[in-house]
């Protein structure tokens, strides 16, 4: 069930170069939202028509507020970044399936890369047990202090070494060798794959949230795909990242075909 309505912008500011945080008053969507889900932000332009799928970073059900953290990557997100408080945008959500929160798990490892970091924040807020986070960035870091509030340890990796470990998050995981019973991860596909390989060696189950280009966002157009193992056949199939995902189990994802 998702809601299609107008949301009012409460705040929209750059938190690090090229990365924006937007707060939306969207009571109905906030009510339904779970960690790992996303919303569609509809376009007001006749040139760039498609909605922008953006993951939910924080959910405040009491006040009916959603926080999203997004990167300006093209004309659509550039236009969004120029919008100001009190303006309204048309949104649909929550979309997709969020993370499956394993309440029985004692130790969770959270691994995020770039704009894959924001959707993990609401997850760590809702997740019980001990939590260790590995957050990777190109150069400028964001949301790290927020994660520190909810995690017992937050490791930082940057590609240029400007903050924390110089390299990627998986190299950092190899260096620090964390213990855990469940991994939750979101980021670019090569990172998810490396995280999954790391976890497989240690027999730790993973939940991976994928980023893909989308059009409809609701499962009709079939442009966003993730290859997964079929349940009862030795074959794979293309499943919809927007509707069947964006979170898939690491052991159902087929990487090489």
């Amino acid at each position, binding site marked *: *069930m*998702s809601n*299609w309505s107008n949301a009012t912008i409460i705040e929209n500011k750059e938190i690090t170069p090229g990365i924006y945080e937007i707060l939306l008053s969207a009571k109905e969507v906030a009510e339904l939202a779970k960690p790992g889900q996303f919303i569609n932000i*509809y*376009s007001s332009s*006749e*040139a*760039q*028509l*498609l*909605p922008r799928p953006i993951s939910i970073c924080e959910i405040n059900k009491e006040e009916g507020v959603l926080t999203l953290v997004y990167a300006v990557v093209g004309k*659509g997100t550039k236009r969004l970044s120029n919008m100001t408080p009190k303006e309204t945008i048309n949104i*649909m959500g929550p979309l997709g399936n969020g993370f499956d929160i394993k309440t029985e798990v004692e130790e969770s490892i959270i691994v995020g890369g770039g704009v894959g970091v924001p959707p993990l924040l609401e997850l760590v807020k809702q997740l019980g047990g001990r939590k260790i986070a590995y957050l990777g960035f190109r150069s400028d870091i964001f949301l790290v202090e927020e994660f520190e509030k909810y995690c017992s340890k937050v490791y930082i990796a940057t590609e240029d070494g400007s903050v924390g470990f110089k390299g990627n998050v998986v190299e950092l995981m190899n260096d620090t060798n964390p213990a855990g019973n469940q991994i939750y991860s979101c980021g670019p596909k090569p990172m998810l794959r490396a995280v999954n390989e790391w976890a497989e060696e240690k027999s730790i189950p993973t939940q991976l949230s994928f980023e*893909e*280009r*989308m*059009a*409809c*966002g*609701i*499962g*009709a*157009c*079939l*442009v*966003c*795909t993730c290859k997964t193992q079929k349940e009862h056949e030795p074959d*794979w*199939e*293309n499943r919809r990242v927007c*509707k069947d995902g964006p979170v898939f189990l690491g052991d159902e994802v087929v990487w090489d075909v």
Partner: protein
Amino acid sequence: MSNISTKVNIAGVELKNPVMTASGTFGSGKEYSEFVDLNQLGAVVVKGVANIPWKGNESPRVAETYGGMLNSVGLQNPGVHAFIKEDIPFLRQFDTKIVVNIAGRSVEDYCEVAEALSHADIDMIELNISCPNVKEGCVSFGVNPLTVEDVTREVKKYCKQPLIVKLSPNVADIGEIAKGAEAGGADAISLINTLLGMAIDIHKRKPVLANIMGGLSGPAIKPVAVRMVYQVAQAVKVPIIGMGGISNGDDAVEFMLAGASAVAVGTANFFNPRATMDVKEGIEDYMKKYNIHNVKELVGNITYI
């Protein structure tokens, strides 16, 4: 309101209004039923189905372009048998007509799907010989009037329901192609499918789509589609279902004036989930404004001076 009639008749099938969905943009209706009352649609045209499941093309399958988009899905589908089992019972809950788009890599494939559907509770079949994203079959049948005629005739033998033939715009003379479909026994013609296009990421210096080329759709292609509907209307007698960039009632009226008896809404569903309803209401508004009692009066009704 009560004295306007929006009913149209396509090959003996009466639609309560001329608004259909374009195949591949509306799934099998389920996804949109949260936002659109499917009872309000003239017909739901479902995503293309083949004789067996197709995996579709590699990702990325989409590129946004100015006023439109490119897709290279490649007719991913669960196969006709899964479709009959799961999707038809869902759609039958609604008071709308069901049109099934069929895909194939060979004439035999198409015939097999048509035969499988012959006992299914559906209203029409749409023969897809115009998808630009599949190497074998599909559009290769749709670019020559003689092969269009042949494949139409063969598939028609297996159809228990009226047959719509969906044409590709990627041809030199759309009128000749339409004549081929009509000669082969098409009961109606729908057009246009997507225009073959391409986008290149200048920063990575590589094609945006994994399949390199894809089908262009959306408002950007509307004038091409209107022109082709107009040309086909001059060439054949069978009814025409017009599509290509329709996002509102005015667009739909334009297609009907060009000669379409019904219209289909495609890419607009992606950026406006209620686009079909906006189109339907927009047509009614136009009729009221110009005091038109029967929507059929619009079909091909243009003057030149």
